[in-house]
């Protein structure tokens, strides 16, 4: 539906990365393969390859973010690109400048790529339709819609632990309604061919017709976790507690909090994931978050490799000719 035509150039290569929806399995696997070859770079003494030397990447963050912005910044720096960080939430638009004026100003500074985070769904898509043809856009999160690099780093982490996606049962737990991470994960898991994707949440946090996304809906945590290989927890925003969606943190944790006891329902070798930042005692117990099945910190370091892979692929650079480290 969305994205496919705009995300690929006429040769079928990745031009913008806006959503995992509609991209082919081979393209998603290619992102994971590229990320494998970048994964070692961060462990070297000199953590740089010259693939994107001379390129300028602008981080356009219309919504505050620390960790996503930082990992994009590190990814760009390890590829030797120049990076501009623009915290637009507090600059241009608050002076009344329109979004397209901001974009054209940055174009005039000869940027090659925009990494965009925005509070409204479809913002990255809109920006991709507005920029000059030589500029690429990576979606670093738009409203409730998509966060494709987060989903791909989660896929990368799953593949490292489970080797392949076939025969996997995956449960995504928490605020599906407001989650761009969940939507991007669901599309990626479906394209990569998992056996089953489940979403577990009270009805108030599940969007209408969610089953059309190809998922099984569970309101009971124990039933939903039964026999799964991967548990993906979502962050529950504090503001969801005020208003009509949930009664209290206490009740949410009682019903949907991940504890070691609950985790017994999953397969013995199930892994536990979380996009961060974690609300300990709200959606996940510290014993689980810091436990041996948690791969949460690995997700963070994989995030840099996956973002390097996406940036390099969009710029048409292959890691196999990445040359000597500088």
């Amino acid at each position, binding site marked *: 539906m969305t994205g496919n035509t705009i995300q690929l150039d006429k040769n079928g290569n990745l031009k913008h990365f806006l959503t995992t929806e509609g991209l082919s399995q081979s393209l998603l696997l290619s992102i994971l393969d590229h990320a494998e070859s970048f994964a070692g770079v961060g462990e070297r003494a000199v953590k740089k390859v010259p693939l994107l030397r001379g390129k300028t990447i602008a981080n356009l963050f219309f919504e505050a973010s620390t960790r996503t912005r930082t990992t994009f910044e590190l990814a760009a720096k390890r590829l030797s690109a120049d990076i501009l960080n623009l915290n637009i939430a507090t600059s241009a638009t608050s002076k009344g400048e329109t*979004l397209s004026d901001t974009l054209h100003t940055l174009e005039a500074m000869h940027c090659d790529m925009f990494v965009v985070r925005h509070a409204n769904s479809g*913002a990255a898509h*809109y920006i991709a339709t507005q920029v000059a043809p030589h500029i690429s856009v990576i979606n670093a999160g738009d*409203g409730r819609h*998509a966060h494709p690099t987060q989903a791909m780093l989660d896929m990368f982490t799953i593949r490292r632990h489970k080797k392949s996606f076939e025969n996997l049962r995956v449960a995504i737990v928490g605020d599906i309604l407001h989650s761009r991470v969940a*939507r991007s994960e669901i599309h990626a898991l479906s394209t990569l061919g998992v056996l089953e994707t489940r979403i577990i949440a009270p009805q108030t946090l599940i969007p209408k017709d969610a089953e059309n996304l190809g998922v099984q809906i569970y309101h009971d945590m124990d039933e939903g976790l039964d026999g799964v290989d991967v548990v993906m927890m979502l962050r529950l925003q504090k503001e969801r507690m005020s208003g009509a969606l949930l009664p209290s943190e206490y009740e949410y944790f009682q019903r949907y909090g991940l504890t070691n006891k609950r985790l017994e329902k999953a397969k013995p070798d199930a892994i536990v994931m979380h996009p961060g930042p974690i609300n300990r005692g709200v959606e996940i117990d510290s014993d689980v978050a810091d436990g041996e099945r948690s791969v949460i910190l690995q997700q963070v370091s994989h995030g840099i490799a996956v973002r390097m892979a996406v940036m390099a692929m969009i710029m048409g650079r292959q890691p196999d000719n990445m040359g000597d480290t500088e």
Partner: protein
Amino acid sequence: MRILISNGRLLDPVNKLDGKQDLFIADGKIVGVKKGPDGFESDIQLDAKDKIVMPGLVDLCARLREPGYAHKATFASECHAANSSGITSICCPPDTKPVVDTTAVVELIHHRTQKTNRTNVYPLAALTLGLQGEQLAEMDTLKRAGCIGVSNALAPIENTEVLRRAFEYAHSCNLTVFFFAEDNSLKNNGVAHEGHVSTRLGLPAIPETAETVALSRALLLVEQTKVKAHFCRLSSARGVSLIKAAQEQGLPVTADVAICNLHLTDMDVADYNSDCHLLPPLRSERDRQGLIEGIKNGIITAVCSDHQPHDADAKAAPFSLTEPGASTIEHLLPLMLHLVNRNELKLEQAISALTSFPAKILGINKGTLITGNDADICIVDPDASNIIEKRKLLSAGKNTPFKGWELPGQVTHTIYNGEIVFKQE
């Protein structure tokens, strides 16, 4: 000015008029159908061979953007665009800036209308002061100043006691309430129909119940207060069923639908097309079909343009940040003829829904071809067709969701008060 329209197919379904006959116009009035008055000599003769001659269209909802939003459109630009679609009467909601809650604003609108002199303009008065939903507006004073009905436009009246009293008072003043049914809490800042499309796109959603809950509440108060109510721009099949039940119960209620909701669905939003960001939202195909059925069954009797011209900036942003509404006024008739060509509606129904029925809802003596009536006439070539291009729009608002559509019907002449105000180039 005396005009003879000859050889055309005269069509006025409500008067069972359908046939190749002549129409005679003099001094702003229709002076003869089929046969002219003795000694009639025309100043102008229009040959309407192979064309349909029908009453000028009556549009129940169009925003002309004045006063207050002249950067979007003006009376001059929009009335010209309306004439190009055969429209000669326009009912305007009160959500101008300032709101139509003082006689000064009504006078301003009448002044602009007379200056433009291209269409009849019928302003609706605000139901509550400033459309705030708290204090009743001076309905009777506004009626005497020339308002044809009362409405709170798109603004909610959350306090049910205020709504009850507003209905009661309007009833006492013998005014029809034009009511847009939307529960503001259930809308919850939504921008698209709640369904699988909004779920995929991650757009804040407006559930069907935002319409049906508000409609049910208003219908119960109509029953209690006996006010004459017209429900504007239904969007859901369930909403049509509620109106049907109320009509069967004998309540004095009528309803209309906006032309976009008869052609488009939430699927059209699927690439974040901000030109399809509308209010009420485009709902499912099932809803679209329910609305069509509602017209066929006589539950919905009028179709309006719900014309909302916007400046380019209003639509140039991520979907949720754009302003809702489409520029539709000059495609109202072609879009209806398109439904006729696709066998979704009968020609007679389509024409009635644009002429005599909306006139009846407004209580005006328009929308028919009767000797003695004002000469507001539309002549259309039903066999011609046009491809919609944004740059060719006459409206100042280029925000059409129908870009690239090929639509039937070219209006060749529009006559308002016996004068030709539009002629095809």
